[in-house]
């Protein structure tokens, strides 16, 4: 390894591997999207998207996630600039925003369930809960990762190893943002407009 020339954290073996992983995750979401696309009309006499979606709330969620993506990116830039404290602050903000997003989503689910729109009621609801819920699970995993990253960085210098991980986290978070934009457009916007 030592004879290899320096490669950036996004193009070295680990970075490339992480890109490939993101691609497989994208395939997973693509499958869920395709299924949602096929099943969204199968409401089995129950509500359709426009009956239950609240764009206002979802728009708020979108803004929150987009901002958290920005702060994640800024955190990475701060780390590159060697400003560890600023990086930590930005990461914490990212985490708070992410948790807020997740909280809003859980609340959205709770309201739907309380109104009697459970995932057991139709294929449309099953595919909706699964697609959005899978994204939510990813956010949750990202939050665990974030906490672990912050915890790790508290007492340690910004080593190349750490920079590698932070870069990957940042990629992951942007990726989730991208998926969310798709969910927002395809599930919510198209659902309400239909």
């Amino acid at each position, binding site marked *: 390894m030592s004879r290899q020339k320096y490669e950036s954290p996004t193009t070295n*073996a680990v970075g490339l*591997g992480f890109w490939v992983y993101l691609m497989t995750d994208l395939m997973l979401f*693509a499958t*869920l999207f395709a*299924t949602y696309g096929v099943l969204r009309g199968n*409401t089995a006499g129950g509500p359709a998207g426009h009956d239950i979606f609240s764009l206002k709330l979802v728009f708020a969620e979108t803004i929150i996630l987009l901002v958290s993506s920005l702060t994640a990116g800024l955190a990475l830039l701060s780390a590159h600039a060697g400003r560890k404290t600023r990086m930590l602050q930005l990461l914490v903000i990212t985490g708070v925003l992410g948790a807020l997003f997740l909280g809003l989503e859980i609340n959205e689910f709770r309201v739907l369930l309380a109104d009697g729109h459970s*995932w057991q009621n139709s294929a449309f609801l*099953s595919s909706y809960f699964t697609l959005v819920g899978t994204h939510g699970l990813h956010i949750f995993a990202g939050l665990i990762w974030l906490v672990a990253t912050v915890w*790790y960085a508290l007492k340690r210098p910004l080593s190349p190893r750490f920079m590698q991980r932070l870069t990957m986290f940042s990629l992951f978070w942007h990726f989730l943002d991208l998926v969310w934009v798709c969910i927002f457009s395809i599930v919510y916007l198209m659902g309400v407009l239909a």
Partner: protein
Amino acid sequence: MIFASWLGKLDWSYFWHGWVQFGGQIATVGGALTVLAALIYFKKLGWLYRNWLTSLDAKKIGVMYIVVSVVMLLRGFGDAIMMRLQQILGSGGGHGFLSGDHFQQVFTAHGTIMIFFVAMGLMFGIINLILPLQLGARDVAFPLLNSIAFYLYLAGVILVNLSLVFGEFGAVGWLAYPPLSELAYSPGPGVDYWLWSIQIAGIGSTLSGINFLVTILKKRCKGMTLMKMPIFSWSILATMILLLLVFPILTATLFMLSLDRSMGMHFFTADMGGNAMMYINLIWAWGHPEVYVLVLPAFGMYSEIVATFSRKRLFGYTSMVWALMAICVLSFFVWAHHFFTMGAGGNVNAFFGIMTMVIAIPTGVKVFNWLFTMYQGRVHFDTPMWWFMAFATTFLIGGGTGVMLAVPAIDFQVHNSLFLVAHFHNTIIGGVVFGYLAGIAYWLPKIFGFKLHERLGKAAVYCWVTGFFTAFMPIYLLGFMGATRRMEQFDPALQYQGLFIISGIGTAIIGLGVLLQVVQLGYSIWKRKELAAGHDPWHGRTLEWSVPSPAPEYNFARLPVVTERDAFWVAKHGGPALYSGPFKDIEVPKESGVGLVVGLAAAVFGFGVIWQLWWLLPIALAVIIGTLIKQTYVEETERIIPAKELKA
């Protein structure tokens, strides 16, 4: 309510099914206990743990894959014997010894095991053994990930065998079409065992895919451009691209079926808007490329073997690469040929039928290239070359019948029939199994330092080929007689029994072949001194033959520099030296138990979902996540092998 009981769906009644099942339970538990007892008695448990289970050496992980796969092969083969025996009895007017439900569990297990736990296991095993060596790399890109992937595969194996002891397996066929596989029609834990054993193993496969793809793209030695890469490595590159694109589809699909079963969702149920056809589309969008995931590495192995044993360059290397990539791309556009009988209409059926036939073109090109590699060569018929001849002899028929099946109007008559069963065994045994057995015969000397006994090996090839034809030609005929698959009983008036008996004889001959291979392995280990292979027993062409056998942990004492294809062959014949310069310290990955812990926790997680022991899931997940986070704190993941040791 799903939280009704801490014990979930666990029920003691699942322990007892009948005497036939009891045999399976005894064999599984007894086998496991015997191995454990032997390990304790010979005081090998610690050795096993330190030298194997925690090793991150790709070659050792490869050997573990192969050992587990071979054990599973024996189990899958046992299933095959049971099925054939039942069909012999059940086509002559008797009831046989298996009920319909049990018979269905047996063939579901047979298919699942053979594809996921034998073929995939052997594939990853051989890749682990050889890929880094062939690329001139010291290791795979991610050794720890490699170990984790192996243990996820093992977790699947554990679950599939657990179903034999406790509970039941799915009685739904190896792809578990809904709505039959839904809770409404399959309320027991069998389908869940099926789901979670392959779900966990499948995630392992995806991780392996990432690992090997990056290994190929990033770890090649100096001078090895992609077009100078050995063709086996090329086939793995194509395979991994394919695998990475389709395994997430499998993961998502299994996830959705599991949600249907565990959470009462309606993705694929018959009612409430569920769409079973969606499942069938998705599962084959994975399933057909999966067939090529299995066979492309075998094609790569044949390419290496034919060139090596013909003592000649591989003919049409560029064509071969194009053919590989063409198969890779085309295999995404054929999935609907598995259900022409759904009634999708002439245009859809014709499109998928024609796309399927088009795959025959690059495959045909590969065959011609192999033939012309032998042409004007000096062909040495050692066991691996015998396997190639066996492959060519059987696979061509399988290809022919495959093209027949691709014509929708013919498919209406042979779909789901025994003709189809004969066809895919023709391609999978002839193409995949023979290929992997060839690969093992060819490369094992590099790993263990001795060759496998030649005459026993050839006798095994003999039994496999004659057994194959005896077992499956009658099955083709039965297809022509209008016999459908997955039946444990046939009207005796149809007079199928005779052909089933002939087929049974064939199964016995294959069984003799398997036995001969077990004997061959034991005998070769016993006579390993006499069978000792030098570093280059077959007059090889590629880098793996340039290092000692068995290959050292670090693969290469000095990293090679290549200038051409067939680098080692060129070097032997007066080309530039592969190795030069001073020896340097080498870093190799330290042993790690992380994979073992993650794999076991994954198995526990699977067990928890299967039996709806919900409280177990967060515990298992916490163990996995905690272990992985803890790993990020380990700074010293590698140990150093000093340069002076290398010279010695």
